[in-house]
């Protein structure tokens, strides 16, 4: 029945608070802050100035290259500022601040229904690109790039990621239950664009209603099936998902297209459908506000750029709340301020009460991390090398294959912050690479 991969962990699911709550549309905010970086790739360049009037869905930041995605105004109103603002990545990033005019009007040409069957492959990709669609599972990779593999990488299978393996988060579960047909239509669009003949929707077994709903929706689609996955973290990770569903191993350092597969999150697929069918840019997304630090957890459809502070005021924060995480507890990022805005990649706002911090000790070489790592790496070795800041030792490890899922840190009896060290180690390797590249370019200094 349920398929799976080697390694992984079983953290408590913590989804009871919100899994039964239908998506509520969050109130349209009075002000939005649209960062120019909401994706992997080149940052956007602003194309509006202070004082400009913008409409809902109007492009306000143009892509900085092919691997990039435009950003749009999520409300209609006036641009009040274009300046660096706190961002969930932890540093200030240039953003477009828009004050609402109360009208919430769409820009011209948007929100117009089209006949998908009449659109060509190129037209579909163009709609997806200009809608600024990026991977909504959290990685935010520009979708039009993913849907344009080179000719020598034919795709035969499109996989939809309905695993939602992060504890606490339930927004994907809700959109699968509430908008199954839209998701299936989105999948069909992607299969057409990629010329793929098979579609598989992978859903973890802890979402029986979503499985049932989607099975019904694909009943009449012979080339699409729904597969049940064993509940394990990180089943939603791309390589592990592809392996569990197709038994194909994506080569280390490679992309799924190398094994003929493209994988998309279900929320991304929904956005693809809306972009293709209604020419709607990506200006809102479903997310879960939860944690034992909020009074009223729930699943919300939120406009991109909405202030997290406003959302937390709406949900009500308890006095004992002392930690804010954007994303899930495993791979989400802890925040130092509430004054950040929801971006395309925000799938969860997690508020924790009475969170503790702790000291770590030396690696006792128990091997639990090696057993847990879904990529079969050696987190023990990596952690020791990074702790000692030994760059040559770091280089000899497989650190670049780590996607920072946190399984190792979760099982470590010495409570070692392995993922923090991996981020540090990767930064050290980038620094080294940059230094070496510079050395190759600079002329050799003359000997005196």
């Amino acid at each position: 029945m349920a398929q799976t991969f080697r390694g992984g962990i079983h953290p408590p699911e913590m989804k009871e608070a919100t899994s039964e709550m239908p998506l509520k549309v969050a109130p349209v905010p009075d002000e939005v802050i649209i960062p120019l970086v909401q994706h992997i790739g080149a940052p956007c360049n602003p194309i509006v100035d202070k004082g400009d009037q913008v409409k809902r869905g109007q492009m306000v930041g143009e892509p900085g290259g092919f691997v990039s995605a435009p950003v749009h105004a999520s409300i209609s109103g006036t641009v009040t500022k274009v300046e660096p603002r706190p961002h969930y990545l932890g540093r200030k990033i240039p953003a477009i601040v828009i004050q609402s005019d109360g009208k919430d009007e769409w820009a011209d040409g948007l929100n117009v229904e089209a006949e998908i069957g009449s659109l060509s492959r190129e037209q579909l990709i163009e709609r997806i690109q200009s809608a600024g669609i990026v991977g909504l599972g959290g990685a935010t990779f520009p979708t039009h790039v993913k849907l344009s593999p080179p000719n020598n990488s034919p795709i035969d299978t499109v996989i939809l990621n309905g695993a939602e393996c992060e504890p606490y988060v339930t927004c994907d579960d809700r959109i699968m239950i509430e908008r199954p047909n839209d998701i299936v239509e989105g999948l069909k669009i992607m299969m057409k664009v990629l010329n793929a003949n098979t579609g598989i929707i992978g859903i973890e077994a802890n979402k029986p209603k979503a499985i049932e709903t989607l099975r019904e929706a694909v009943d009449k689609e012979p080339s699409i099936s729904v597969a049940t996955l064993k509940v394990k973290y990180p089943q939603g990770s791309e390589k592990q998902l592809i392996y569990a569903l197709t038994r194909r191993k994506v080569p280390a350092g490679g992309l799924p297209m190398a094994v003929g597969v493209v994988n998309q999150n279900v929320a991304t697929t929904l956005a693809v459908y809306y972009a293709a069918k209604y020419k709607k840019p990506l200006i809102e997304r479903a997310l879960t506000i939860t944690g034992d630090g909020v009074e009223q957890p729930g699943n919300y459809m939120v406009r991109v750029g909405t202030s997290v502070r406003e959302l937390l005021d709406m949900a009500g924060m308890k006095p004992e709340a002392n930690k804010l995480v954007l994303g899930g507890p495993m791979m989400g990022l802890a925040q130092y301020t509430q004054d950040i805005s929801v971006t395309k990649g925000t799938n969860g706002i997690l508020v924790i009460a009475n969170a503790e911090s702790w000291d770590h000790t030396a690696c006792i070489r128990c091997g639990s991390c090696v057993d847990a790592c879904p990529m079969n790496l050696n987190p023990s070795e990596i952690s020791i090398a990074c702790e000692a800041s030994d760059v040559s030792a770091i280089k000899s490890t497989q650190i670049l294959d780590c996607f920072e899922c946190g399984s190792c840190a979760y099982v470590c009896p010495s409570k070692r912050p392995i993922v923090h060290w991996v981020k540090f180690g990767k930064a050290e390797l980038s620094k080294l690479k940059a230094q070496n590249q510079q050395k190759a370019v600079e002329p050799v200094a003359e000997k005196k």
Partner: protein
Amino acid sequence: MWTVAAVLVLPAVYGVSIFGLNALITILISVASCVATEFAIYGLFRHKTTVQDGSAVVTGLLLAFVLPPASPWYVPLVGGVFAIAVVKLAFGGLGYNIWNPALAARAFLLACWSVSLVSTWTNPVAHVRELRRTNDQLQMISTRVDGVTAATPLNARKRALAVYNEAIQKGREQSLPPAFRIEDPKEILRRLNVANKTSYLDLLVGLRGGCIGETCVVLLLLGGTILLIRGYIKWYIPIPYIATVALLTWALPVRLEMPGGAARLIAFAGDPLFHVLSGGLVLGAFFMATDMVTSPLTQKGCIIFAVGCGLMTALIRIYGGYPEGVCYSILLMNTATPLIDRYTKPKTFGAVKK
């Protein structure tokens, strides 16, 4: 670590009840020495102490467990200092030591005070008889202070075989008991074993001479199972270790001198159950070899390590100079652990063969 310490209390209590006050004193001195040394050295370096993680206490207990009950007071004292200061802290503290501190300390003590460590055995069987007679624990303990130089079961069998071989070699077969002047070599071996027999039940329960903590197999197995179930140790060290020892002690050929000058090698005639239940094998397999710091990281590595320990233990017990091989075999495999780790590196998911 404290769970391991708690589990070790059971064999400790047994050891004290069966061997007397001396055993208690040895245990206390050993634990105190380990804890005090750790405190002192961290204090000396103005470092926050790590005594509260319980590993010094566990080392103290395990060190006491591998010492004879009537060891002079300076033996566990020096052993504790050596185990913590040299074997553990000099290498970097918890997580960095290469050798198991308790076992390395025992090897050191054997080198320093070889007589004390091999001849101060206490015979528990007489002890138990005494217990049944007097019915008063305290009185009994104080009358059994000095050890009896009685052989441990492993020692007894090894010596018996050596005595027999020497007698035949020197042409003195007439000096042997009639039961041994027969033709069939396998039968001779069997009778040698029977003559130096401690019943399997006695071995299981621990009614035999030996080190303080190694005798009661049943309690050690119980403790080991608790640790396995709770996930503190993995099965892939103790099970392959014991299995290898059982297999090899049964299969490996033993040299038996025959009258007339020819010596025969008798294979597949060993007594595996005896070997598994005697000496420090169960203690070593479940509590020493499983020490995470000094054993390999991966499952495959641990199995190689365990089989290596089993091989060395069998070889030392059968062919080596010592009656017991667990201590040295684990130390030797600890030395090999970094090498094993290097050759059993996990293969990255999707790794491309270059």
